[in-house]
């Protein structure tokens, strides 16, 4: 028998494959197929929050100093933040295995 590859048993799925725990998308790791990673140069950054606003995956959050830092668990490497940054503080870096 081939190895079972399913995430969970079909018998345990909710009726009508409904999701009954709201907000569980936060558990979903969307950052595992990124090829480029955004990095912020704090010397250029003006803390304008454009990266935070434009990010489609809620990667950015404000740290104690007011900088917006990345949570790579969610980052797909789309590069929107780097494109939108008005002071070119964000650079996309090639991921290496």
């Amino acid at each position, binding site marked *: 028998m081939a190895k079972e590859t*399913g995430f969970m*048993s*079909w018998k345990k*799925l909710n*009726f*009508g*494959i*409904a*999701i009954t725990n709201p907000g569980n998308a936060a558990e979903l790791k969307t950052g595992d197929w990124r090829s480029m990673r955004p990095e912020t140069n704090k010397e250029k950054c003006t803390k304008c929050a454009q990266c935070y606003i434009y990010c489609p995956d809620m990667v950015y959050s404000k740290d104690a100093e007011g900088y917006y830092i990345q949570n790579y668990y969610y980052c797909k490497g789309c590069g929107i933040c780097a494109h939108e940054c008005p002071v070119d503080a964000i650079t996309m870096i090639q991921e290496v295995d």
Partner: protein
Amino acid sequence: MSKQIGIEVSIACAEAAGLCDVDVVAAYPITPQTHIVEHLSEMVADGHLDAEFVPVESEHSAMSACIGSSAAGARTFTSTCSQGYALMSELCYIAASLRLPIVMAVANRALSAPINIWNDHADLMYARDTGWIQIIAENGQEVVDLTIQAFRMGEDPNVSFPVQVNLDGFTLSHMIEPLTIPDKADVDKYLPPYRPKLRLDPANPVTFGAVGMPDIYTEARKAQDEAFKNSLPYIEKAWDEFGKQFGRYYKPVETYKTEGAETIIISMGSISQTAMTAVDMMRAEGKKVGLTRIRLFRPFPAEALFAAIKGAKNVIVLDRVTSFAGGHVSGPVALEVKSILYDRKHHPKLRNFLVGLGGRDVTDQNFMEMVDQVAASKDDGVPVAYEFINVRE
């Protein structure tokens, strides 16, 4: 008390949906379904039916609105056919996967091209893999009864699937027949209020129709398939209880004079009534012919069908659609029958005829020709997947 009245079958279908206290009707008119939707619109506008009538801009929107209303817990009805069904079809799969017991009357009509508004089963077969329960009426009374039963079987918590009530376009939809319309109080007794297991509710938020990655899609499909497979006894229960209460009994597979029959014709829908006349005529001539009618096409009642035909030496399967499979495999109904017979290692002589396409009449003479043709044919090892009947060379 129920009453018997002369009424157009489409109007009676709408009245039956009304007797079921539908909450929402979202539908778009298309020939030959139009009178069903028009009448429901009138019933709502005139205050005879306390429901939301959503005059959508297309069939795609119709089924989208139906999915939303059913997911919110509303008893939901719609109706379409043919090109309209084709346009709404992508949503139909979703309604079934989300387990929403929407009821839809389909006034069966051919698919284009050429443009043809008349009756065949192209739309019925288009829907066969969507996960909807498909039931098929033979006459006007069955349209009324099946419409009421559809809500009961679809909303059964052990079922919870959408139901398609198929009635032949024009041949049934536009006929005026003496029909028994059940009393509202009796329908209320038969059909309890809809109580969904889950519904869209701001107090208890749920998500319907989320993405399913490769690591869960197979499990989701398996769960749906098991639920659909297990719905058959509850469909039969809805029919049994209807019979007990209203005195009209329904089964997934109906038989007519199949006892001792050497040749059995398998048909679906209104041409079965012509077939019964033809069977009577052939029986009068001493030919041992019977008829088996499929009332439930999905989920397919394999055991009941096998029980009905296993005694026959010859089987004739009628298909009312061209499926363009390349000429070497049979039409969709015959495929099901052959699959059942193969799995049970039972091999009567079987012929598949394509009949009644795009409103072409099927006469008692046609049935006699088919029966004679099968009886005379020799199994010479040359496979014949299917044949057209009534085609002019």
